[in-house]
């Protein structure tokens, strides 16, 4: 680890917070339907979308209406994307002449992009036509992110309102999230990415004559427009197979900093918007400090583990001071690779600028653990905030048990119904990850996809189901996941991780919005101070640890111990 490496990490994080504050203020205006700086340009577009779709923005929905509208919108989006992928061979903008996808791969991919996971069982440049990349994947990159933002805003309204029945209008929230937040950010930062070297063309490829007289075909396409929203919307699905490690997707250290900034900025801004919408910015600061503390700790462990290298690298004659550069790019080095790995999984982004499967066992455990902790550090756009608020509910409940009082959070009494729903949501993660992993660990059809033997093979399984259930999308890439078993079960894990989590969360929103907002009394446990922040961080770690530590002991921890003993598989 170097001072410059740490400085790089802290400067990028500071740049995120500096922009997220005003963006959060802007977003709180957008979602209250107030006039904002973009209204003169986008107001007419927003109104025409409402008019054409027959939506009255003033007509709000109950939690159930909101959730059903969300489900219908996502189901229809899935169906269109599935059909598009199946039929891509017959459609235009297909200069490479790619055939339609197989049913299981089309299912997996459509689910993957609708759930904001962007797990990719295929290599982009060898599978997807330009039309599929643009009209299929790019559209869902926007809409799955907008769905997440809308849901988070609905839950925040439930805390902000007192004795109300409705939590907002889903369609209006999606339109506003897309038009005012995601699209402008994607256009501006996407063009910046082109300026830094990312291609944006309808050509399929360029062929060049190499200096040694060979021929090299360079895959091209409308790359920048897709990868801008892939990061802004914490989707993470790359245009190319190796995602943000590809020099066209991420040409330079500067573009790498921009890419990390892109994936963090909306999620952090949402926390600031949350503070404004509930009228208490200190609450946002408390949550943000927990996110920052644990995320920086994750970055630190990954950076340390990768800089430490492995005895196997050292015995081959490599300078131990250089760390582990297998699967990493020279232009990023150790610090920027470790930071990217932690951020992409602290979020639910899933883009990668280095190959997590080739990290040292402890370094690779960091992204896996960050997913298992629920991707709330700070989590994907929207999903991170509502996930964190569920943990906060559990935290005040635990605190209430310790002192024997009815817990309250943000002026709302937390009672049996909210707790049941919160636990129901939280349990999805261990159920899907450990359940599917257990079956896959003994099934020949699953095991034949593993790329590595020994404990790392088990880690590949854990990582795949963690990534799918957590809607992350990154992978230990040794796993050959494009087979009916993996495509189908990972698709199911993605659906469970997204929607089986959202419905109980929305039920909590429905229950809370109807409750009166209580003024804090002498007996209220304050949720803006360091005591609550510490408790919240503790609950996150204890929950994750209890659920996953035994599994991790058999995977990455066993591998680390074996590796230090010089054992290979």
């Amino acid at each position, binding site marked *: 680890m170097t001072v410059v490496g740490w400085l*790089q990490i802290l400067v990028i994080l500071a740049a995120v917070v500096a922009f997220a504050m005003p963006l959060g203020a802007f977003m709180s205006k957008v979602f209250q339907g107030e006039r904002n700086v973009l209204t003169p340009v986008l107001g007419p577009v927003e109104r025409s979308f409402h008019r054409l779709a027959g939506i009255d923005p003033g007509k709000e929905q109950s939690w159930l209406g909101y959730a059903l509208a969300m489900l219908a919108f996502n189901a229809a989006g899935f169906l269109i994307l599935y059909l598009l992928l199946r039929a891509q061979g017959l459609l235009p903008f297909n200069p490479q002449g790619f055939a339609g996808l197989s049913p299981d791969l089309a299912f997996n991919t459509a689910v993957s992009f609708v759930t904001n996971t962007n797990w990719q069982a295929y290599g982009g440049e060898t599978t997807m036509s330009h039309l599929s990349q643009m009209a299929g994947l790019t559209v869902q990159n926007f809409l799955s992110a907008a769905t997440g933002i809308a849901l988070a805003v609905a839950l925040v309204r439930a805390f902000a309102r007192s004795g109300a029945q409705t939590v907002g209008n889903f369609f209006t929230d999606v339109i506003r999230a897309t038009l005012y937040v995601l699209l402008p950010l994607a256009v501006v930062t996407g063009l910046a990415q082109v300026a830094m070297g990312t291609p944006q063309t309808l050509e399929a490829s360029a062929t060049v004559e190499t200096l040694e007289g060979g021929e090299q075909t*360079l895959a091209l396409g409308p790359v920048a427009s897709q990868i801008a929203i892939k990061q802004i919307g914490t989707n993470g699905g790359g245009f190319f197979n190796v995602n943000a490690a590809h020099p066209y997707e991420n040409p330079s250290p500067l573009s790498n900093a921009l890419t990390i900034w892109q994936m963090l900025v909306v999620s952090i801004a949402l926390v600031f918007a949350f503070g404004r919408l509930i009228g208490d910015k200190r609450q946002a600061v408390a949550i943000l400090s927990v996110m920052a503390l644990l995320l920086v700790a994750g970055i630190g462990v990954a950076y340390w583990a990768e800089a430490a290298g492995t005895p196997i690298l050292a015995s081959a*004659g490599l300078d131990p001071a250089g760390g582990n550069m297998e699967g990493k790019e020279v232009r990023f080095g150790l610090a920027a690779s470790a930071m990217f790995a932690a951020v992409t999984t602290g979020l639910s982004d899933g883009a990668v600028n280095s190959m997590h499967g080739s990290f040292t066992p402890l370094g690779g455990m960091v992204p896996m653990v960050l997913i298992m902790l629920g991707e709330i550090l700070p989590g994907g756009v929207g999903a991170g905030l509502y996930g964190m608020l569920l943990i906060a509910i559990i935290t005040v409940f635990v605190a209430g048990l310790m002192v024997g009082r009815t817990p309250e959070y943000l002026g709302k009494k937390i009672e049996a119904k909210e707790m049941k729903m919160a636990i129901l949501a939280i349990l999805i993660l261990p159920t899907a990850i450990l359940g599917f992993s257990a079956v896959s660990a003994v099934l020949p059809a699953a095991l034949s996809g593993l790329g590595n033997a*020994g404990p790392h093979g088990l880690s590949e399984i854990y990582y795949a189901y963690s990534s799918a259930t957590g809607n992350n999308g990154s992978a230990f890439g040794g796993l050959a996941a494009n087979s009916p078993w993996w495509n189908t079960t990972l698709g199911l894990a993605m659906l469970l991780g997204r929607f089986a989590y959202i419905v109980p969360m929305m039920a909590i929103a429905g229950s809370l919005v109807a409750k009166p907002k209580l003024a804090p009394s002498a007996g209220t446990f304050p949720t803006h101070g360091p005591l609550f922040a510490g408790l919240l961080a503790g609950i996150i770690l204890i929950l994750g640890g209890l659920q996953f530590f035994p599994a991790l002991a058999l995977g990455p921890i066993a591998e680390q111990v074996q590796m230090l003993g010089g054992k290979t598989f």
Partner: protein
Amino acid sequence: MLSQLRATATLLALFTLLLGLAYPLAMTAIAGVAFPDQASGSLVTRGGVAVGSSLIGQSFTGADYLQPRLSAAGDGYDGSASSGTNLAPTSARLAERLRTDGRAMKAATGAALLPADAITTSGSGLDPHVSPAFAELQVPRIAQARGLTPQEVRRVITQNTAGRTLGLLGEPRVLVLGVNLGLDALAPNAAAN
């Protein structure tokens, strides 16, 4: 219920037109005017012929060229099939490869310790750079093959070395294609030597 279905169908159609066609096509048009070189892949030409991209690594095996890192993209530096090895840190295959390559490179260069990128594969398989230390390791070989002095080779390498951006971001790096174009310009008949 019916109004919800109408809203869903209409919005998906509108968003597909706006985000799936208008947005990427408008970005393509703007990028093509404002940044035509980058938008079409940052191609490098020599004598009117495209010989590579300044962003994408290519294969060099000759002793007279600066050699890049090992690549797992296709058969090596396949610009249409990016890939890492995805081998585990405890993979026997990786350990065996590292031992063999490490022994060979130490014998060829006489170095006691090899730079971290010298025998490891990159993440993309298309890494266009090597570390300054790995480039320095290759200077005597290139100089001998080209009939140049080590200082002349180093000068070309320095011209194609970038530091950390703003002194902070990323790592110092040497652009392999840039160095090799520079070497060819300096000693054009290297192949004949």
